[in-house]
């Protein structure tokens, strides 16, 4: 029976059926649900690693030791694991190794729009790209046979619309893969210059074989509809093209996007008068076509930015206007994402805004602290940068600037890549104040456990990294734990710690309001009483439940969860908590 399955769930199913034994990942939208779905399969060892580099290395170790392994990440996660990736290309594999990377065209939940296909080329690792859930499963399984056949890791490239769309998938049985023999083989696995120099030769030979394979594999297919127009596409862009153009053009669908075929493309193009390359983001396939002397239309007709749509393709290729629609003739307010009612971060940013501090920010739900009305965050670059960038800021601007500067970083992000930045501060005599926003979970990606929560991905109790002990052992002498909803105390602590001539850490501790335990804690709602002087102090919180009705403040009881933060900031005791 066919099942409706998310692309990510289908990749997980593919891994299961392919006999995968180990999966290690760090969460990142839009890749997270692959690893979450692996949890369904008891035959697979699965874990959340502290970051993508660690995750990749766990998978690499499992592969070298003879089992099929996988690691999954979002596009920017691949940057973190890149160091391991470039060298595992040289060592090759023992058990099959697949690295799933999900790009985020349109930046639904990311800080950039990088095109991960460049990594395949740069690291000389083959890359497959499925177009729907059924292909997600099929390509995952095929990736394992190819990995072992060609002795190479394989990238599976996904995108938001493939990862997060559900389509029909036929489930099959798992094929157990016996562990491959493990033998000491330093020439293959010890990448010091004397060995690596020989492995580079192997890599180049492998690339030649893979390029030949690309000419004949069924992963790449031609659909000849007798048209003069040809379209070369892969992944979700193929689906958009197919919907827009139907059988009015010929298609070369590329399921394997690195290395790309030459003769196949030349033969396809020879039968068409005009060839379009339809690919979101960078002209990766287009540049290859042009390099082998094929005159294709690509980024001259299509944008480098964001997601494509079928009507955009129809207009560019066939010159047909998109469907008519009812336009909105007035300027309507956008609805950007906001911190939830009851969000523990709200108390922190309320204080930081009030104190007028420069805030070096990081990646997580709390990045929303950059938006009005809390508008506290000055910078957000990448995972961990809040800590190290603040150190750089202080070094260039000096002690007075430093007294008005803090870093904010979530518990999971701190584990991911905040620790090394903090070590740098201690080692190099910095005196920054770092606020770890400990909400007891990895929030933004949808509640994954991490080394500070005390539970594994399978919800088994485990040792919990103690943030206080950790910071102290690095050499931070001043570590304070505070509840960010106790705004007066929290404000005093931030003032004291930023004044210090030594580095310090404040752990802002309050669990995410969406966690089941907090949902039980936060019952009822808050109400405004007649003591209200309309000072609008509570409006400064940017709580989605509090808004103005004329000049009166009102609390929307369908959104309020009674967290009580507004009660704490009201100077007139005019807000009451009700059960």
């Amino acid at each position: 029976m066919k099942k409706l399955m998310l692309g990510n769930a289908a990749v997980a199913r593919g891994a299961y059926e392919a006999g995968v034994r180990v999966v290690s990942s760090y969460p990142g939208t839009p890749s997270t649900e692959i690893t979450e779905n692996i949890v369904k399969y008891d035959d697979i060892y699965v874990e959340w690693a502290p970051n993508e580099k660690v995750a990749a290395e766990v998978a690499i170790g499992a592969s070298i030791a003879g089992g099929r392994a996988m690691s999954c990440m979002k596009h920017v996660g691949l940057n973190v694991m890149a160091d391991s990736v470039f060298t595992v290309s040289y060592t090759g594999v023992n058990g099959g190794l697949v690295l799933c990377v999900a790009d985020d065209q349109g930046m639904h939940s990311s800080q950039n729009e990088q095109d991960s296909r460049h990594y395949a080329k740069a690291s000389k690792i083959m890359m497959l790209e499925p177009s729907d859930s059924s292909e997600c499963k099929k390509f995952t399984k095929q990736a394992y046979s190819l990995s072992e056949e060609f002795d190479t890791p394989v990238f599976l490239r996904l995108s938001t619309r493939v990862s997060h769309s559900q389509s029909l998938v036929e489930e099959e049985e798992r094929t157990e893969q016996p562990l491959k023999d493990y033998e000491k083989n330093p020439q293959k696995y010890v990448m010091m210059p004397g060995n690596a120099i020989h492995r580079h030769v192997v890599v180049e030979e492998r690339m030649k074989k893979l390029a030949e394979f690309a000419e004949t594999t069924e992963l790449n297919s031609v659909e000849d509809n007798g048209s003069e127009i040809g379209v070369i596409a892969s992944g979700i862009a193929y689906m958009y093209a197919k919907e827009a153009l139907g059988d009015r053009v010929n298609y070369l669908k590329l399921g394997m996007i690195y290395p790309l075929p030459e003769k196949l493309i030349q033969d396809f193009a020879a039968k068409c008068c005009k060839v379009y390359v339809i690919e979101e983001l960078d002209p990766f396939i287009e540049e290859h076509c042009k390099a082998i002397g094929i005159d294709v239309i690509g980024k001259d007709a299509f944008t480098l930015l964001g997601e494509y749509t079928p009507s955009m393709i129809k207009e560019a290729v066939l010159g047909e206007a998109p469907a008519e629609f009812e336009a909105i003739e007035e300027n309507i307010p956008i609805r950007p994402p906001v911190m939830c009612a009851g969000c523990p971060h709200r108390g922190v940013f309320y204080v930081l805004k009030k104190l007028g501090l420069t805030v070096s920010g990081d990646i997580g739900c709390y990045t929303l602290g950059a938006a009005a009305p809390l508008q506290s965050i000055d910078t957000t670059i990448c995972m961990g940068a809040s800590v190290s960038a603040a150190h750089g800021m202080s070094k260039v601007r000096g002690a007075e600037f430093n007294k008005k500067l803090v870093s904010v970083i979530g518990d999971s992000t701190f584990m991911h890549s905040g620790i090394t930045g903090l070590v740098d501060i201690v080692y190099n005599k910095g005196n920054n104040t770092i606020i770890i926003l400990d909400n007891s979970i990895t929030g933004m990606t949808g509640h994954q456990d991490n080394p500070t929560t005390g539970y594994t991905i399978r919800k088994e109790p485990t040792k919990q990294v103690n943030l206080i002990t950790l910071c102290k052992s690095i050499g931070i002498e001043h570590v304070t734990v505070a509840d960010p909803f106790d705004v007066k105390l929290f404000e005093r602590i931030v003032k004291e710690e930023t004044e210090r001539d030594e580095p310090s850490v404040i752990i802002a501790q309050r669990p995410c309001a969406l966690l089941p335990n907090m949902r039980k804690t936060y019952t009822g709602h808050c109400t405004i009483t007649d003591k209200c002087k309309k000072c609008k102090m509570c409006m400064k919180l940017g709580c989605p439940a509090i808004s103005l009705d004329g000049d009166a403040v009102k609390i929307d009881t369908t959104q309020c969860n009674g967290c009580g933060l507004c009660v704490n900031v009201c100077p007139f005791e005019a807000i009451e908590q009700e059960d």
Partner: protein
Amino acid sequence: MNIMIVGVGGQGTLLASRILGNVAIKMDYDVKVSEVHGMSQRGGSVVTYVKYGEKVYSPIIDRGEADIILAFEILEAYRAMPYLKKGGKIIANTQQMNPMPVITGAMEYPKDIEKKLSERIDLQAVDALAAAKEAGNLKAVNVVLIGLLAKSTDTDKQIWLNTIKETVPEKLLDVNLKAFEIGYNM
């Protein structure tokens, strides 16, 4: 059939689109459901697409192509209007949730949305929040709206009931079945 489900992150649009997707499979259609995860789920505008038919390629719906728009909030119904096909229908919950630019006072919540919509397109506006309250749980707004959608799509009601039974946790089943009936009969 192209159905777009719009609302505010946290309102349960994802569950609604999954129920609809599974109903379509039971009717032997090819189906695609495009979801939104990550940052946009945090109280922002959320859009999911459900498409079914003989063969579905693209999981997304373009402007002017939705047969039905199911809106969980009235401003989101208005925002989605350009996606409606000529002759299509919007089913909208009249609930108003202020977005942050309105809360901060930077903009006003548009006035008379229902009137503006019904002047231009086929609108069925209902108070799904009151209906959910009547069913016994404010969170059942999504299933009230699913009931309305079931009625509008000319499909076998039993398929919907079976799908809800398979999707919703046991302890919430009674409330949700009640919410569905209220929506179906609105």
